């Protein structure tokens, strides 16, 4: 069987590593099509992708999918984003303001009209607009680029992930599959995908979810017919169930410079979307921890694990104040993804040797649960939006898996109990959420079996025939024009302005220099005009400005004498040059 696995970028290879290996082991041919090139991802992921492809050499290849820009692509993106935006203005998502903002940011400003509608009418209007955009999606033709990609690779089955990005173009692949009658599956990449991102806008033949909760979300929130949803378990975490620590506690603590006799608390940082500047929260938490009445907590080792995808905010963890709050280590310093043997060991050992895990709202808590570690969080004002404002946060609080505190005092009490008392079991949560078919039943074989089962699937095809779509498409022309005006032209306009500014600034710089130079020459009488002006007395000769002073200002130093000498020498050299 030939499988085309469409992924947005190489980050998703990590989520499906076990599935890809399994499919290749079962002699299927897998083509992983990345929409964005591997060059844009961190080097470690590039290495991981190369290694994965090399390991499954005869059966797997990673290719870049061609860019799809068509007449309707901009319009389609805006309509999809509008639909996603409308989603967050209706129950049960109306509290997810951050998600709404994210969706809104993708829209051109004329389509942001929903904010102008009175709050009490917003839900109804959003529902209506959502339905209209859903209808428009049906009408829009399948992208020719996506069809060509499918023709080129000629797969038996197509899998798409993540599909639910705001205004995602991957919908084109699902629609192309419908048009070409190729079985298409949507692989839900993570536990939060169905609640804090976009809608599933075209109906895949199969939707692979982790558990019953996601199954409900797919049916109730995305309108997927239940017979198309397949529960597989969380295949991404299969590796952790059998993983063994590579280092003893003593060696691990020694390497990190921690005291092995003290308990370890692991702080797992969240993604930028959940909390942009997490260091403030961590400092507050650490201060409370160090001021705790419980001696064990006060002296506990703290490991802070930065979020692997938060490269932009990684520098926040270099804060000097962390070092003043007892034994605190940021490990790994640059927040690695667990994709190589070393980084996996680091991650696993951190989880394995810790007594409890603390964080705001992150997937690392699920991995901690697999190892039987309880997780704790605090609902504080600065971070509450990333917790209670996210529907998926409720998954963590089920079965008492995540200890939620409303204040730091309550949180410290919970931590004390966890460290001193009997640690509570996380097995129920893991069984329900990650391995719904039992703790011994891994998700990967189920996932693979379900993919294989798609081979002989009878594909329904598009509900709206292509000819009808083409006839109705002109109705969408106003949106296309708006998009062209405000998005394409806007973008190009912005580019032009930027370019003009750059040119202007350069010309300005050169112009000012030129004028200054002429002025100087004139005053020195080295130009004809200067000579004339000077001779008629309009211009008095001025002594040449001492260059040292300016240089002295430029490079202040504690020891002025040698600097002055150096500066003068330097200035002379420059002048000569």
């Amino acid at each position, binding site marked *: 069987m*030939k499988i085309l696995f469409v992924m947005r970028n190489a980050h998703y290879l990590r989520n499906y590593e076990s599935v890809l290996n399994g499919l290749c082991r079962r*002699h299927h041919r897998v083509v992983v099509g990345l929409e964005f090139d591997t060059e844009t991802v961190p080097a470690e992921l590039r290495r991981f992708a190369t290694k994965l492809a090399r390991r499954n050499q005869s059966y797997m290849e990673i290719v870049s999918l061609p860019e799809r820009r068509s007449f309707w692509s901009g319009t389609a993106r805006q309509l999809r984003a509008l639909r996603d935006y409308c989603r967050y203005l209706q129950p049960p998502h109306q509290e997810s303001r951050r998600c709404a903002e994210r969706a809104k940011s993708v829209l051109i400003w004329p389509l942001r009209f929903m904010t102008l509608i009175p709050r009490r009418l917003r839900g109804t209007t959003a529902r209506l607009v959502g339905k209209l955009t859903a209808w428009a999606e049906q009408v829009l033709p399948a992208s020719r680029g996506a069809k060509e990609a499918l023709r080129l690779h*000629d797969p038996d089955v197509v899998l798409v992930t993540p599909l639910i990005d705001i205004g995602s173009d991957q919908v084109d692949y699902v629609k192309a599959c419908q048009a070409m009658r190729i079985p298409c599956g949507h692989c839900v990449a993570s536990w939060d995908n169905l609640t804090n991102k976009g809608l599933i806008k075209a109906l895949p033949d199969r939707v692979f979810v982790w558990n019953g909760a996601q199954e409900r979300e797919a049916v109730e929130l995305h309108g997927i017919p239940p017979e198309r949803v397949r529960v597989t378990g969380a295949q991404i975490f299969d590796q952790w169930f059998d993983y063994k620590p590579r280092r003893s506690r003593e060696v691990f603590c020694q390497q990190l410079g921690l005291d092995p006799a003290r308990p370890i608390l692991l702080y797992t940082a969240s993604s930028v979307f959940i909390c942009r500047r997490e260091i403030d929260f961590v400092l507050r938490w650490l201060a409370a921890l160090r001021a705790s009445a419980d001696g064990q907590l006060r002296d506990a080792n703290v490991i802070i694990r930065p979020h692997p995808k938060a490269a932009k905010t990684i520098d926040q963890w270099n804060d000097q104040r962390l070092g003043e709050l007892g034994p605190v280590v940021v490990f790994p310093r640059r927040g690695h993804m667990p994709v190589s043997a070393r980084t996996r060991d680091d991650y696993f050992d951190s989880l394995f040797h810790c007594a409890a895990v603390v964080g705001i709202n992150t997937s690392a808590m699920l991995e901690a649960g697999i190892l039987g570690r309880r997780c704790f969080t605090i609902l504080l004002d600065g971070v509450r939006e990333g917790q209670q404002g996210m529907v998926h946060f409720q998954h963590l609080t089920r*079965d008492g898996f995540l200890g939620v505190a409303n204040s730091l005092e309550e949180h410290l009490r919970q931590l004390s109990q966890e460290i001193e008392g009997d640690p509570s079991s996380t097995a129920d949560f893991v069984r329900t959420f990650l391995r719904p*078919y039992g703790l011994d039943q891994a998700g990967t074989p*189920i996932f693979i*079996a379900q993919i294989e089962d798609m*081979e002989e699937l*009878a594909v329904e*095809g598009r509900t709206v025939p292509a000819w009808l779509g083409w006839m109705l498409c002109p109705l969408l022309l106003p949106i296309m024009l708006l998009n062209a005006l405000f998005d394409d032209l806007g973008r190009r306009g912005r580019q032009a302005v930027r370019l003009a500014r750059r040119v202007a600034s350069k010309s300005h710089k050169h112009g000012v220099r030129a004028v200054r130079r002429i002025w100087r020459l004139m005053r020195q009488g080295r130009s004809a005009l200067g000579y004339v002006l000077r001779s008629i007395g309009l211009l008095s000769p001025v002594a040449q400005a001492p260059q040292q002073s300016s240089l002295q200002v430029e490079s202040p130093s504690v020891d002025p004498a040698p600097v002055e000498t150096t500066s003068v020498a330097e200035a002379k050299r420059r002048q000569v040059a």
Partner: protein
Amino acid sequence: MRIYISLQNAWYGKNLEPVILSLLHRGHEVIVGLCEQGHEQDWLDKLESSARNAMVTSVPDRRDRWTRAVEQLRHVIDYLHFLGPAFDSVPYSRLRRRGEVPELACRLIRRHQLRYGWRRRAAIWWLKWVDESVPPDAGVVDHFREHRPDVLVVCPLLGPEIGQYEHVRAAKYLGIPTVYAVHSWDNLSSKGLVRMKPECIAVWNEIQKREAVELHHQPKGRIVATGAYPFDAWFETKPSLNRTDFLKILGLPEDRPLILYLCSALYFAKSQPEGDFVRDWLVRLRACDDLRISEAGVMIRPHPKRAGEFADRNLLGNDPLAVVWPSRGEMPNSAKRHGAFFDSLYHADAVVGLNTSAMIEAAIVGRPVHTILETRYDVSQQSTFHFSYLSDPKEGFLRVATSWEMHLAQLRETLSGSESATQAAQFVDAFVRPHCRERKASVLMSDEIERTARRARVLGLSGALLRRFTLSWLERMQSRAVAADAEVRWKRCQTLEQWQERRQFLDSLERVAV
């Protein structure tokens, strides 16, 4: 009249035996042409030696440059046939054909979306046209010229081999009318597509007639429901032994009820032995609180094709009230064997099985037949069309249980004698003898063969038009198919065993409720 009966092998001819005897009895010359020798040919040899006007011969195979192309064409046509929406609920047939389809065809089907709708129908139509344009094999034509039959009867026609289509092709070329005798009750729904439009299609009943029209697009006027001639003997047979003697032979007590278990051929026979199921069934029977069931005599009749499964004497756990008989399984192809089988059915108080044609025989004898739906045998039960004919609550006669408790309750009801045999009788009237219970189907079939032989007009093969073009297309495709097969480095489809294994795995998954 000279009638040529083309059989794949002698085993298939057994169903046609009453028809052959009837034709011989009417004084016709009957030539039986076999594509394969062996396969229980004794009865044919005996027939040849005893009847003056009977002859057994073998037909040459097609051996020319079109042989491979014709074979692949047939696979592709059958695959496209099973891709039809009617077969969505029968994935097994589809997958089985998929493994035989050349890589090139798979690619073209995907690329041009030939799996669905009018494109699929158009592709079938075109391929049938191409198939009909292929010239007949000279050897086969010479063979028929030599024998000069008035009519050709083919059975089973549908199946993995291509030989019999070559007979139809040659017959059409020579202007000999053809009768397609449907071999069994599942043939039209699970074996492939009937092509080349025989002059007459002799089906068993109205259900098969509907299948021939709807699934095979054969003209209604050429389809005749003659009844199920293989079962003619069952309407006349009388028990050879009384109950006491019969049970004495089996070694079972005569004062207890007798339950007969009929083993089935089943798909995936190797990966799904029926012995395990029978053992389970027996254990549950013995654990039943009703003494009539727990202490009933049990007779297990192995399927002739899978007799080896019951060679192990310990399989049934040394149950003194259970016997496997005949221990090696046997085809009822002689009077003695037929009598023994009839006695088994006749003296049984209840019959149990998964899905086998012996259930129809039990219905003719008037015995209540039970079955239990098992997930592991889903592919042989609910995922087939023909099972639904027996299990249909209105028209069928099977007492279907979805759980063991239900099965035991139904058995209890049957053994208490509260069940009437009306439904079984109605089924036999509709399915086995649709015209009249007293009229032999073999006689009707013989009449139909005679009528077809007298029919002057033989439909030609439409592919003769544009032959040059279609054959050059076929040749080009054949060379491309060879190239495509050579370049493919991975397996396009899974083996049936893998498929079955996967289905079992997925079916066995049960979500843990926490």
